[in-house]
């Protein structure tokens, strides 16, 4: 039996404010992490609602439900809510919960900044969502916001620009907090190359965030001044260039997709060793692969723009740099596979999500490799093939990793176990329906169905119906997650300090639930070693 870390020596540290003050004035990393996760969950279901509406409209050929303008608003808001409202805040929430516990710190380094970076979010989210109710409706130019189209939307346009400014500020503050925490609050003895992979991937993600969120802010600010103050950054009639917006946007946009997926690599690198009962294979290779992916993410943005008419040399460069990303990504997949090899595997819910991630993210990686080849991309670009590709890497990729993380660490957070059987139902329903939902979209794209269309030619009906049915099942299945978490927190059976026998890392040396101020005194080398070796 493991000896949980003794933290009751100074019981007065457990003092915490009660009632609404605990949340509004929150400076505790766990409280803030919880709020981040709840916010992300709310946005996930709102964004999912928009997705259901989209799939309902596309259930069959012939317009049935929405005006195309409303449809375009729905798809734009779906993307904005999922990227900036659901996945990014969910990762920050997990970072808040786990980084201090994993590095042996009492809390995040900058608790009040932490409070600010969370509390910006509800306002930004409200501003974004309220654009549905202004004249002209929500923005309908896609999350890519290409001018001049983006400037054709009325009052919602400046609202979205300011919402993005706020979300960006929140992300930057959160990222600064992560970097400062990791650099300064590691327990003595925890060198950089002893950090858990989740901490490593988040450190790299935080640098990406700090690097690119200001670029997005700059791009949307230029849009704003073009529209309201007569500048011509992107206005061809005034000597500007709409293509420049695309370059700036994707210079942000490509690192952004790695911001969404790198922490997922970290989570998977925690879960697979735990349920293989075997240390991660090639730890250092994993760290270097993550860093290479982050570096490469800055020099591949042009692959989103192969049809805009770049010079051949530029297209060749972006094709080759993009293909290069397959190498470190492959290294990661191979190392995870080698971690399972000769392990002693069991399939609790976190592992199920991690294994599904391994297979389905890899499929998304393969379609990404196909998309990198410019001549083929001329046919794939702007079609459902692209939609299938990025949903494969983001839904059974990033979102499954978030769910795996929740199921992995929930006993540590709540001190209680959840209903494993129900969680397995959640997994199987999700894993099957996500493929029914997105796999046929490869066919649709290849057969010639453009993305972002409100209505389509009748020959595309069959696979769209399959996709929509998958979508509805996937959407409804997700309701299980909050139910499972709620039941766990309310009435789950008490969890042990280390509920998974193969789990490694400092967080499992703390009791379950973890004390309010995680590590009041830094863990000793012995605790560190026990956590790592177990």
């Amino acid at each position, binding site marked *: 039996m493991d000896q949980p870390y003794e933290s009751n020596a100074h019981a007065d540290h457990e003092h915490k404010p009660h009632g609404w003050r605990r949340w509004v004035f929150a400076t505790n990393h766990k409280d803030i992490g919880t709020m981040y996760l709840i916010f992300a969950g709310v946005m996930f279901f709102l964004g999912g609602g928009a997705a259901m509406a989209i799939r309902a409209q596309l259930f069959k050929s012939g317009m049935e439900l929405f005006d195309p303008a409303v449809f375009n608003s729905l798809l734009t808001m779906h993307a904005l809510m999922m990227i900036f409202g659901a996945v990014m805040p969910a990762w920050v929430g997990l970072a808040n919960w786990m980084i201090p516990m994993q590095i042996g710190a009492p809390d995040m380094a900058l608790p009040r900044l932490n409070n600010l970076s969370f509390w910006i979010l509800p306002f930004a989210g409200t501003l974004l969502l309220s654009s549905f109710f202004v004249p002209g409706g929500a923005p309908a130019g896609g999350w890519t916001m290409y001018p001049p189209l983006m400037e054709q939307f009325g009052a919602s346009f400046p609202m979205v620009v300011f919402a993005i400014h706020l979300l960006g500020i929140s992300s930057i503050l959160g990222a600064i907090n992560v970097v400062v925490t990791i650099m300064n609050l590691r327990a003595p003895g925890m060198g950089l190359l002893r950090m858990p992979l989740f901490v490593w991937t988040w450190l790299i993600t935080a640098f990406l965030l700090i690097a690119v969120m200001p670029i997005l802010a700059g791009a949307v600010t230029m849009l704003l001044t073009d529209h309201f103050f007569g500048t011509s950054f992107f206005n061809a009639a005034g000597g500007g260039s709409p293509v420049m917006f695309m370059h700036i946007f994707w210079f942000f946009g490509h690192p952004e997709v790695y911001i969404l997926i790198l922490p997922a690599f970290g989570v998977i690198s925690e879960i697979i060793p735990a349920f293989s009962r075997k240390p991660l294979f090639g730890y*250092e290779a994993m760290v270097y692969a993550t860093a290479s992916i982050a570096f490469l993410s800055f020099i591949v943005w042009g692959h989103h723009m192969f049809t805009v*008419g770049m010079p051949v040399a530029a297209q060749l460069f972006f*094709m080759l740099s993009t293909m290069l990303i397959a190498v470190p990504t492959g290294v990661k997949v191979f190392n995870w596979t080698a971690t399972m090899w000769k392990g002693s595997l069991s399939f609790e819910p976190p592992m199920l999500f991690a294994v599904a991630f391994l297979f389905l993210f890899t499929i998304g990686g393969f379609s990404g490799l196909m998309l990198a080849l410019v001549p083929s991309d001329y046919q794939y670009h702007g079609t459902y093939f692209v939609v299938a590709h990025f949903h494969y890497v983001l839904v059974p990729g990033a979102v499954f990793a978030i769910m795996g993380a929740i199921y992995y660490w929930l006993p540590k957070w709540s001190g209680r176990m959840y209903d494993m059987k129900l969680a397995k139902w959640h997994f199987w329903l999700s894993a099957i329906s996500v493929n029914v939902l997105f796999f046929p979209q490869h066919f649709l794209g*290849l057969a010639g169905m*453009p993305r972002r269309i409100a209505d389509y030619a009748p020959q595309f009906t069959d696979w769209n119906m399959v996709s929509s049915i998958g979508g509805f099942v996937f959407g409804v299945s997700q309701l299980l997650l909050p139910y499972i978490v709620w039941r766990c927190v309310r009435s789950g059976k008490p969890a042990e300090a280390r509920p998974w026998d193969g789990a490694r890392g400092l967080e499992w040396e703390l009791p379950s639930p973890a004390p309010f101020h995680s590590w009041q005194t830094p863990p000793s080398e012995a605790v560190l070693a026990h956590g790592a070796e177990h």
Partner: protein
Amino acid sequence: MAALAAAVTGTLPAAASGWDLLNMPRGVTNVSTRIYGLHMMAFWICVVLAAVVFSVMIWSLIFHRKARGAVPDVTMLHNTKVEVVWTAVPVLILIGMAIPAARLLVKINNNTDAQVSIRVNAFQWGWQYHYLGTNVSLISKLSMSDDAARMLDSGVNVNSVPDYLLTVGHPLVVPVGEKIRLLITSVDVVHSWWVPDLGVKKDAIPGYINQASFIVNPSKPGIYRGQCAQLCGRGHAFMPIEVRAVSPAAFHAWLKKQSAAQQQASTGAPASTPAAAST
């Protein structure tokens, strides 16, 4: 609802063929066929790689289970030799894919020596085509019957409309066997001119003139359809492209007739122009 039921049961001819739509068309140009070849090569390489990687994973999932009494080999931490191999081998495979892709890319972007040049002006929501060196210009928008059928609560079963959403009033007419160069721009927002069978997709961007070219295989005259591939507002789903590839003789006869008609229209004669003239 009746239409829904009919569509679900698959009794309608258009819907019934939908299950076969699984892959990229080979198309009717040399380039589109070569793109198809590159696409299939990349696809099969991915299938083989997936088969290898997934087999190893599945092997572990089956045989290295705790439930089967598997004992973990905790000494397996890293292996530099293996890391080098699984870095180097993918690099070689990627080089093998990049070479044909680069060759084809260079070929596609060669827009010289065109016999027919057409300026394409995209607008919300349609295409204006102008045959350079002639006075022939036409506006190509979603056909009236499709436009009526697409409206909310139109009461029209869209499956009864032939080539619903893919038919235009005045299609682009081109000769087979001749190199056609498109000079593509936009008068408002960004659009993208895409006809899968021709292997051409090029963005129409205000302030830029993009070039694209194609030669329809002489043995493949016919009607080829496509759509705008860049979100361009409310009518994005409703700006199809229809290209009629005809014999050079028929093309030149058509062009001559159009030219005469547009000449007549611009000099004020009360003629019934087959195509709207502008610019």
